[in-house]
């Protein structure tokens, strides 16, 4: 580590040019950063014209803190936020963690607060970690709503998303109808995550409440799709007597459908189902490889937070927020076609804006 050779004369001779090197290096770095930063220039506040009937306001900036920012599930959520932002002439930033790291999400939320944004939408994936930041934001006059996942005890103004436990209960009832007795498997990507754990809790409750002789295994599958598929596959190989495969997250549901297809389990009367409308899930649902999937309408989970935060902002908090259950929509073989035939921003399957006629 020591570079302490060289004569004093050499030092003074080099001194000025070394400074120039430092300055040159620094300038190059700043120039390069300025070029990088350009893409975010449009996030800077500029005067809006006033959307529709609304008064003229500065261009509000809302921040969405997400637990899996690059997960395809949230593409329609971002489209929803984008469309609402265009409607209301606001801006939004999509940030958080790529792999459900709570500390990273807390950092992103704290940065949003120090950046004095105009509103925060947060997926509350931890029982307690977001309580402090939420209170800090509200104290600073920044409205906070939760979307997609929620926790009791957080001071957020409203939750916009699926009532997770209730949806799990409904799924459990459906499971009891499909498999009145025998063994079923319940797959969950990451046990304990607040956005999926309540669903499996709800399903288990419904199964128990039914009083039917149904045995269930709960299996963790991991957070990555390739891993999830392998785990579901492995479970099937080790448990050939299983009568139904059900999952509570998008990746596991797709995996369930793929495993049923791979081993032709429909011929043995195996039932299947789960959550969300990944393209492969819909394709296999239409092909009758599974019985149902539950659509929680992720588009709305991006659209309504922007609307609620905007109205809270312009009304000075007099109004704006309200709980919103984005749903419990069972998609079956018959509806799957409509989804498939109409790639849309609502499902994240197409970027294009267009009108979809019902029943088409």
């Amino acid at each position, binding site marked *: 580590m020591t*570079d302490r050779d060289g004569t004093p004369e050499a030092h003074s001779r080099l001194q000025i040019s*070394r400074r120039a090197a430092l300055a040159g290096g*620094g300038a190059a*770095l700043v120039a390069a950063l300025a070029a990088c930063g350009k893409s975010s220039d449009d996030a800077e506040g500029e005067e809006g014209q006033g959307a529709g009937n609304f008064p003229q306001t500065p261009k509000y900036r809302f*921040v969405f803190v997400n637990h899996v920012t*690059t997960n395809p599930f949230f593409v329609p959520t971002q489209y929803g936020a984008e469309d609402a932002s265009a409607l209301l002439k606001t801006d939004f930033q999509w940030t958080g963690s790529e792999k459900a790291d709570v*500390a990273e999400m807390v950092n992103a939320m704290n940065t949003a607060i120090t950046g004095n944004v105009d509103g925060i939408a947060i997926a509350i994936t931890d029982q307690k970690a977001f309580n402090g930041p939420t209170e800090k934001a509200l104290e600073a006059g920044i409205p906070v709503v939760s979307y997609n996942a929620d926790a009791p005890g957080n001071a957020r103004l409203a939750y916009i998303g699926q009532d997770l436990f209730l949806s799990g209960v409904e799924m459990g009832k459906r499971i009891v109808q499909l498999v009145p007795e025998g063994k079923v498997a319940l797959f969950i990507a990451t046990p304990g995550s607040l956005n999926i754990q309540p669903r499996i809790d709800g399903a288990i409750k419904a199964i128990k409440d039914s009083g039917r002789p149904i045995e269930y295994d709960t299996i*963790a599958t991991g957070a990555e799709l390739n891993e999830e598929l392998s785990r579901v596959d492995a479970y099937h190989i080790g448990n050939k007597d299983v009568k139904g495969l059900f999952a509570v997250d998008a990746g596991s549901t797709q995996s369930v459908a793929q495993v049923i297809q791979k081993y032709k389990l429909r011929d043995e009367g195996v039932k299947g189902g789960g959550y969300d409308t990944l393209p492969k899930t819909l394709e296999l649902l239409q092909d009758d490889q599974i019985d149902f999937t539950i659509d929680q309408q992720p588009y709305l989970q991006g659209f309504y937070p922007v609307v609620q935060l905007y109205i809270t902002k312009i009304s000075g908090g007099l109004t704006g927020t309200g709980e919103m259950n984005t749903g419990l929509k069972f998609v079956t073989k018959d509806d799957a076609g409509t989804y498939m035939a109409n790639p849309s921003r609502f499902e994240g399957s197409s970027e294009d804006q267009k009108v979809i006629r019902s029943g088409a």
Partner: protein
Amino acid sequence: MAPETAAAPSASARFAELALGRRELSIAVVAIALYVYFLNTVVDFASTANLQTLGTFIAATAIVAAGQVFLMISGEIDLSVGQVFALTAFVLYFLTDAGVPIMLAVVIALISAALIGLFNGVVTTVIGVSSFITTLGTFFLLNGLTLTISDGRPVDTPGGETFTNVFGGGAYSGILWAIGLVLALQLVLMRTRWGLHTFAVGGNLLGSREAGIRVRWVKVRNFMLASTLAGFAGILEAVRITSTDPLAGGSGIMFQAIAAAVIGGTLLAGGSGTVIGAFIGACVLGILRDGFTLQGVSAFTFDLILGGAILVAMAVDIYVTRFRHRGGRGGAI
């Protein structure tokens, strides 16, 4: 004694000598340039609140990186630090849950982290499995252990108000711990036999052995240090976010710590590096993450810009370093 008039230029010459003569100070130039850039382009970057946030971006990475530096200098690496990070916080939780007083629980949790380091070290140096493979094994093993004992569920981090404020919850507590540990460990590295032996073992293993250094023990000690620091960082972070999460840390913090060390001048091949350099490396990463988030960069473009900025920053660093060498300064990087 030189007269004052002559002393002034020679002092600044000495500063320039110092600034360019040391590897970690050229990356400091990059860090300062980044800081100034964000100071001038993002209004709230200079606020007190952001200074606190910036500290939270840096602290954990810097602490984990400090241990990694010792290990990397001695020619080994620890991939399992991110899992020790998560596990140690759970050990703390279960101990306090069982009624152990919290300070004692912290000590026992840190000892358990050190034991994991001991295990990594013994498997690597005695059995002879390469540290990359040993710690890849413990990476999965510990992750599974954490998930099993926690049932995959996050729990509330224990601790009263004073404990919380001191161990990560206070506004500057994390970053102060980081700075304190970095300074102390830099001294250990530069001024003690442990540090000297660490360099010797990484630079010339055979020579060190023949010179009578107990090379295995040096490496094992560094494994234990790296694990203990990772565990400590895990506790600080769990206290800060008030929730102990089985998915905390993981490969994310491990890569960031290794990146911070390498950016700060520690060689992946061993034999060279400084703790201060790794701290500055962590600052560079932290400033980039904080600054771009404040600027409103969204997730998809974020990685694009972060990756580009790291490459540009490192290229500038190499440019400054190369200039120094061209100016007649030899020596190792």
